[in-house]
């Protein structure tokens, strides 16, 4: 069975909530919309205190080409345009809306009827992309790269395939898994829309084999779409990394940055994005709700929710039985790449794939010992780098050496630190080195 070639690890999967059907989360009392929910320029608020808004109404417009608009997920009154402390720890602009009822914008198709491209033959690639852009769709896997930007590759590059990332390689998370089981038809239509948007006639849906039910279901349903192929992959982290996924599915390796995946012919989109694209294009529904996994070993009822953006994470945790006594850490996202949260008041955003609650014991790192040069980090690195060397050079502030050793290729997947028997903070140091070196390169290029 296929997988990517270099490195990788296999953390305990812990998919505790895999069998839990998606539940619709209750509406929040106050919904909070941070303006920087995506990579690129933050959105600009276009509502003011006291304004009445409906579900699906645009409340902030894109701050540039690489940006995305934000839509209200609730109906009610704008409470204030203020700031919120995000997962990054910084206060960022945000719109607060007091929820009153649940009144949707007209024009949003709330029915379950499946609409396929056959029903809408008049749709052109440009229509699809502009609908996606206006609906504020971003990459739902966590990186939140605006979807329309990826669908407009730089001139000269020729997309050959759309590859749907449905591997969900992060331990614990099951949101994509449940989405595939419950919305397979919509996902497939979403894939055809993405393929049409970039004018390719081959699409892959890559799923790790720890989700056999999803593989079986999608393979069966994909029979109606001969141009879409479901590709089962061996379970290995970080298979959901763009570069690793392309390598696993079509066997091509994207060169070092600044080369884009499209340079080898691949457009990658998350399976959640494909679903959001379907809703945006066929149902006129902006991106204002998503599937999110709330999980953890100490949590009473690990669950998958369909939650409106802006819902405080604390509310979802309460719906799973409340924050356990022995909670040590709350992570937004999965355990390998997720961000530890300062508090649980953080709202659900476009990139919130999961909330993971770890107990006190799991939250602490082991004692750091000397590097024993076991080379496990070198073996685990999916980019073919030498984390032991990079971290040591970062510690010594040897920036030139770090650049020569290709530190900018690091995808920060954390395999090195995961595997280190000496518990060394390899990725902490590599991150520091990488951001410094990227700054040096940027200022050098500016001259």
């Amino acid at each position, binding site marked *: 069975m296929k997988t990517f070639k270099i490195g990788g690890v296999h953390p305990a999967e812990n998919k505790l909530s895999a069998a839990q059907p998606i539940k619709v989360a209750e509406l929040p009392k106050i919904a909070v919309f941070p303006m920087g929910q995506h990579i690129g320029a933050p959105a600009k608020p276009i509502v003011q205190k006291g304004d009445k808004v409906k579900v699906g109404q645009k409340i902030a417009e894109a701050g540039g080409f690489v940006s995305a608009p934000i839509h209200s997920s609730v109906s009610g009154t704008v409470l204030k345009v203020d700031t919120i402390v995000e997962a990054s720890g910084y206060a960022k602009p945000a719109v607060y809306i007091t929820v009153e009822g649940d009144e949707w914008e007209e024009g949003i198709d709330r029915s379950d009827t499946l609409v396929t491209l056959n029903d809408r033959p008049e749709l052109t690639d440009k229509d699809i992309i502009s609908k996606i852009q206006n609906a504020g769709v971003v990459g739902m896997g966590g990186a939140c790269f605006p979807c329309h930007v990826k669908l407009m590759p730089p001139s000269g590059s020729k997309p050959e395939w759309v590859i749907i990332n449905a591997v969900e390689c992060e331990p614990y998370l099951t949101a994509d898994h449940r989405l595939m089981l419950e919305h397979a038809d919509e996902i497939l239509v979403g894939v055809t829309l993405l393929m049409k948007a970039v004018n390719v006639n081959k699409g892959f849906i890559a799923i790790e084999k720890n989700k056999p039910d999803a593989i079986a279901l999608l393979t069966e349903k994909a029979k109606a779409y001969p141009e879409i192929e479901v590709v089962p992959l061996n379970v290995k982290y970080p298979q959901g990394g763009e*570069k690793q996924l392309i390598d696993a599915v079509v066997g091509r390796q994207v060169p070092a940055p600044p080369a884009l995946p499209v340079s080898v012919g691949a457009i990658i989109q998350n399976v959640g994005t494909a679903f959001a694209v379907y809703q945006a294009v066929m149902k006129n529904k902006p991106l204002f709700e998503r599937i999110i996994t709330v999980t953890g070993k100490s949590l009473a009822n690990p669950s998958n929710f369909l939650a409106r953006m802006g819902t405080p994470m604390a509310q979802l945790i309460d719906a799973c039985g409340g924050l356990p006594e022995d909670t040590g*850490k*709350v992570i937004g996202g999965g355990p390998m790449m997720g961000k530890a949260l300062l508090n649980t008041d953080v709202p659900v955003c476009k990139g919130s794939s999961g909330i993971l609650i770890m107990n006190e014991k799991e939250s602490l790192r082991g004692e750091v010992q*000397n590097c*024993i040069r076991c080379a496990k980090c070198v073996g685990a690195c999916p980019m073919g780098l030498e984390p032991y*060397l990079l971290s040591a050079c970062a510690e010594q502030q040897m920036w030139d050496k770090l650049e020569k050793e290709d530190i900018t290729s690091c995808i920060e997947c954390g395999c090195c630190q995961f595997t*280190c028997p000496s518990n060394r903070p390899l990725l902490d140091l590599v991150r520091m080195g990488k951001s410094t070196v990227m700054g040096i390169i940027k200022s050098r290029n500016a001259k």
Partner: protein
Amino acid sequence: MKQLTISLSPHVHANDSVKKNMYGVCIALIPALLCSFVFFGIGAIAVTAVSVASCVFFEWAINKYLLKNDKPTVTDGSAILTGILLAFNLPSNLPLWIVIIGALFAIGVVKMTFGGLGCNLFNPALAGRAFLLISFPVQMTTWPEPLQGFMTLDGTTGATPLSIMKAAIKGNDASLLNNLPDGIHMLTGQTGGCLGEVCALAILIGLVYLLVKKIITWHIPVAILATVFVFSGLMHLANPIYADPVAELLSGGLLLGAVFMATDYVTSPMTKKGQLIYGVAIGFLTVVIRTWGAYPEGMSFAILIMNAFTPLINNYCKPKRFGEVVKK
């Protein structure tokens, strides 16, 4: 609300540790250790016990009194491992005070002087053995015959397979090789030699354990064994005064070195490519020393020489980067 822990990802760990790896190697050494007790009796137990105890003691004492280290590292198992490996490289009738000197050199000079765990340039146990071999050549090259009864301390000593091979080369007389024990005896360890190197089978069991537990990868042992097999095989074909490759593989410290010494994390290269180069070079040097050197055994010197080249190998053997464009 109570304070949440904030840290950067990854938030999970493989639960691997230095301890697990070190004790894992110790477990892999158990079959060979038991064999040495069976073959060499109480002498083997005494040498091993003294070696382990003095290695642990010296590491503890140096940490506490010289380095004033708050966190003594003796519990990580590396000193115990060095102790066992040092004992494995000594004859069972070696006076115990020499064992203690070897342990002092291994831990005190080779390991702790460079900064302790992970910082040493040379394999401590092998450096200890080399030091003793040069300082006490007679005691270090007098090996008792195996299976002389458990309590025998002053048993008869005899020729080892390697000394027979050396004699054949020196005397230019292939018939001397007929005195070699047969393959089965060499595999099970019924020949003279150092404590840990006599039973090839026990070492191979250890190798399987290390590979299954993913403590080591196959690259270094296979590179060494294949090189020795091919190189000594060619020599044997060219001139029968050189022993056949199977005898070369099964004799002396070759297997012990290839499985437990050359694979030492700290002193071996970091990349697969580097490990293969390192293994091939060790195999080559071993046969060269065995054939043309002054000592009958070349394994320990070959590994120590390549230990010195490890930083250089690390510098030049880079892993293949993802997406690397092959330069034409």
